[in-house]
């Protein structure tokens, strides 16, 4: 591994894997996501163990408003699709399209966050607070951890857009874009599980 | 193998000679502890065999193949040996099978539920910081610190904690079970012989975890019936009405005797006949084998009532000063309690 390539506009086919640093980053990030799977797996386990301990708080079947949660799900799924387009644009070395798709991705991410904050606010006003019951504690921790991941992703991708403007698409910036996109998919997958386990199962039983 | 067997038998003998009969797991006093001890013996025998084989090979190798001074030879680089590797995979598997089968048998055997058995004595054990409450729901009787059970019957325990997690353990009668807050566990024990056995808390529960001892006393079924009757009898209060009033207002706010007071703190009915005060201060005038440092029940009671924190740090009992008890009152209460014995 000798010098970096700084040549603009002349990128290899998969710029994120062109250097050893890039390959390390991609591999390391997949391993990190493995750890994240365990993290969310544990949060899910705790939630499933405690979800019937509602005590005096509002019952999930009354609390959850499926239409809103469904809208949030759709928004996040769409943003995940946008991030696929972003990576495709990157592979075709189309800077403008890449930035455009990234931009749409974070706008949708922000919309999701907005809905979630609104949702949490409504719940708190209905008496479903962090300290209400074991159900509420594990609910806010699980869904809140996911929300924090979305928020971090939005900040991260925004920073990468700024870097794209400044540095262009290089073998240094490409792996970062690629990683943020895997991360975004991962958050999306976690949400699908939250939607099923927390909201659908909460509505049913 | 033939040479090892007597060695093992000798070791088992040596082990079983160890420790107090009322405390040691190696000198079981009941069928549950006996079954556990049998499992221990199987596993110790197998494991001793393994250890002997490994040690023998180890010593042989280290002596036989040590490098002589100036030795520059390169030993043959052996990749492995499939036959050997299969042997030391299969033999341990067989050994584990020998241990595994009785393990599973006893796991299910010991989990037998006697809570619906009419002949079994039901005892609800509630652990507190740092004392034990024993409730007999069949009889409507509650006692503390000293579990009284009849011999020859299954004692079916329901275990729960009132505060933090503790563990209920009478080593010479049977293994332990945790008392969890909020959910109860079940276990059973049997006491074939009359006697007093030492019980311990086995789960870290705070400063006085080490001192959270209790006693299990097994008596004949007739004696047990008399004890139940005595427990249900009306309380015998102090003769002196002034002292009785002090006792009622200062002590019975948390404690109970007979039909008086509440069970927020250890039940004191018949405390004068118990082996210990606070589970750890042995009463020289009660125990069968008093030690030189043991004091009388009255002295122990006075020590405890005066400054409980000194005896059991972190416990909930207020000191005599906090309770505004005069030395005379302490003396009177101690004497009254020491004389409070049940006839059974």
């Amino acid at each position, binding site marked *: 591994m000798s010098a970096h390539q700084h040549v603009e506009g002349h990128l290899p086919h998969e710029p994120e894997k062109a250097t050893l640093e890039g390959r390390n980053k991609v591999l390391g990030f997949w*391993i990190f996501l493995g750890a994240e799977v*365990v993290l969310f797996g*544990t949060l899910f386990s705790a939630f499933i163990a*405690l979800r019937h301990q509602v005590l005096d708080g509002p019952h999930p079947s009354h609390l959850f408003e499926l239409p809103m949660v469904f809208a949030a799900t759709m928004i996040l799924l769409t943003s995940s699709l946008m991030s696929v387009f972003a990576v495709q644009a990157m592979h075709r070395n189309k800077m403008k399209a890449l930035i455009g798709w990234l931009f749409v991705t974070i706008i949708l991410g922000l919309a999701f966050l907005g809905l979630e904050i609104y949702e949490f606010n409504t719940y708190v006003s209905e008496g479903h607070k962090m300290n209400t019951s074991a159900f509420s504690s594990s609910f806010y921790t699980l869904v809140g951890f996911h929300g924090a991941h979305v928020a971090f992703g939005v900040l991260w991708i925004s920073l990468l857009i700024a870097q794209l403007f400044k540095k262009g698409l290089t073998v240094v910036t490409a792996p970062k874009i690629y990683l943020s996109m895997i991360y975004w998919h991962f958050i999306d997958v976690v949400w699908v599980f939250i939607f099923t386990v927390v909201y659908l199962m909460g509505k049913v039983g | 193998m033939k040479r090892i067997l007597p060695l093992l038998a000798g070791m088992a003998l040596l082990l079983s000679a160890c*420790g*107090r009969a009322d405390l040691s797991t190696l000198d079981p006093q009941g069928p549950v502890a006996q079954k556990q001890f049998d499992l221990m013996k199987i596993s110790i025998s197998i494991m001793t065999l393994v250890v002997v084989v490994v040690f023998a090979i180890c010593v042989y190798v280290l002596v036989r193949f040590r490098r002589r001074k100036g030795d520059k030879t390169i030993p043959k680089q052996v990749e492995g040996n499939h036959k050997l590797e299969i042997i030391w995979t299969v033999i341990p598997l067989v050994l584990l099978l020998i241990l595994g089968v009785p393990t599973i048998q006893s796991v*299910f055997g*010991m989990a037998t539920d006697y809570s619906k058995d009419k002949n079994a004595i039901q005892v609800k054990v509630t652990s507190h910081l740092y004392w034990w409450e024993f409730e007999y729901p069949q009889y409507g009787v509650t006692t503390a610190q000293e579990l009284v059970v009849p011999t020859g019957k299954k004692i079916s325990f329901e275990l729960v904690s009132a505060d933090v997690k503790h563990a209920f353990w009478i080593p010479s009668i049977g293994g332990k079970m945790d008392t969890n807050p909020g959910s109860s566990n079940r276990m059973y024990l049997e006491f074939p012989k009359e006697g007093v056995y030492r019980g311990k808390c086995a789960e870290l529960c*705070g*400063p006085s975890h080490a001192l959270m001892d209790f006693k299990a006393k097994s008596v004949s079924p007739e004696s047990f019936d008399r004890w139940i009757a005595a427990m249900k009898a009306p309380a015998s209060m102090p003769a002196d009405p002034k002292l009785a009033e002090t006792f009622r207002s200062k002590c019975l706010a948390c404690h109970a005797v007979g039909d008086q007071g509440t069970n927020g703190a250890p039940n004191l009915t018949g405390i004068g006949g118990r082996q210990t005060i606070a589970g750890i201060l042995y009463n020289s005038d009660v125990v069968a084998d008093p030690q030189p440092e043991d004091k009388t029940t009255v002295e122990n009671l006075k020590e405890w009532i005066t400054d409980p924190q000194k005896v059991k740090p972190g416990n909930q009992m207020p000191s005599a000063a906090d309770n505004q008890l005069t030395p005379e009152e302490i003396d009177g209460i101690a004497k009254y309690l020491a004389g409070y014995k049940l006839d059974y």
Partner: protein
Amino acid sequence: MATHAAHAHAHAHTHTVKRYKGLMDWLTTVDHKKIGILYLLAGFIFFLVGGLEAILIRIQLMKPMNDFVAADTFNELLTMHGTTMIFLAAMPMLFALMNAVIPLQIGARDVAFPFLNALGFWTFFFGGLLLNISWFTGTVPDAGWTSYVPLAGPTYNGTHGVDYYVIGLQIAGIGTLLGGINFMATIINMRAPGMSFMRMPMFTWAIFITSVLIVFAFPVLTVGLVAIMFDRLFQANFFEVGGGGNGVLWEHIFWVFGHPEVYILILPAFGVISEVVATFARKRLFGYSSMVFAIVLIAFLGFMVWAHHMFTTGLGPVANALFSIATMLIAVPTGVKIFNWLFTLWGGSIKFTTANLFAVGFIPTFVLGGVTGVMLASAPADYQYHDSYFVVAHFHYVIVGGLILGIFAGLHYWWPKMFGRMLNEGLGKLTFWTFFTGFHLTFFVQHFLGLLGMPRRVWTYLPNQGFETMNLISSIGAFLMGIGTIVFVVNVIIAWAKPRNAAADAWEDGRTLEWSIPSPPPEYNFKQIPLVRGLDAWWKEKMDGKTAMTPAEPLGPIHMPSPSILPLIMSIGLFIAGFGFMYQNHWVAAGGILVTFVCMFLRSVYDDHGFHIDPEEEEVQA
């Protein structure tokens, strides 16, 4: 080592990188060898702290009803002893060996993520510091290293003690997780040409599997600590029975992490022993492929046996039976390893260096710890052993008799490679014999104390229970272990004063790549990345009559990552935030987090172009 840095220059490259000397060099280093030394230094200091706590515990238990320390102080001591030894002493010392050796063993110039490596060290260090600051603020964790709720919950533990445990471990845990990811990626991606997975040295294999365990076990602890922290700080109800919570859930979470943690500790020791025994018997490791298989199997089974720590919790006979059998099965691959070591020695030419003494001392000792493990696996018998001194004896046999003997073997073995100086063999052997004898004296009798009815974690015990003599013996043994440790420190100090003259192949019988380069290695490790032609790559070349490895690349300038102060500052940010959370000062918490985020921002925005070293020029200048 700093001299390399001083002469480094940006050869044929426009970026200039500031290189530091002295203290700043150590605070900014991203060199795995220096990070290894930092881990060793910090880990060993924590080892001394934890050892001191152990000595105080043993003084208190020397006689019945002793009042050397108060009951609550004793609980603080036992909690901090366990937590310190496992998270702040044993694991960092393992990370020290990993950092010092792994890149060298696989023929790499550094780890995959040098910056993260430094970050991992500093987060561990500040996490450990935070935990130990509790001694000075007066509220020390006192609910045991397992922190069972409700004893560790807000209702029964109102002071900040357990907060130190929760937040200290959370911060230190970040470092461990980063280390696990880093070494996994390093071992997968950075092996020298020709080094296939089945040509990796056994230590590398052990660290690879350990890293996998870290990656999959530590997030569980993270969640558990978050839950207990939310309970304590935000009145959440994860484990509060009154709020619908469940204390047994904490036990599950803790042990789902905690049991793999045991293997995170012991597998590296297995790796060390495999290297040391093979080297000093001048023989290749017997049954290499079955060793690899055994280690993978142990790791796999390690995830499915957690409930054997909870046999008395009341999980019911079905769970207890399944976990009994699963636990017993681990004995099979472990036995395979034991016999493979013995047969590595068989027919060899065994040299009893200090390192090898520790290694061959490890084998029987670990067997004793292993067989008591099988005994504990039998659930009905465990109802008697559980939470008694029998368990204390068992896990000290595994952790001290296994891991610490392994670490000592590794330190004596790789010391010349890490520092370029040989440790004194006489003092080393004295260390071994005092420590080894002291160890068995301390812990062998504890098996019997447990069987005689002595519960663990007891501050004191009543007289006339048959505990007196064995407790006294145990305490005397602890002092002997302390003396052994002091002899080791003396040995290190003496070695420090000697010239740095260790040979490249310091033990002459080295088998793996680290012995093919100078002791200590240059900053870039390998002038040319070597070509690996088989297992025990360096031994193979030596046997073929060669004096150096065949290079896999031409000579040329070597690209190096730049040093950075950011890892240190990021960790300080987390450290500050930790105090903010604990004392509910949201400004301080936010400020600390902000510091960390700003560092992340800077790291992302300013690219690290690194610098180049020309090894040829270096040699001329030297």
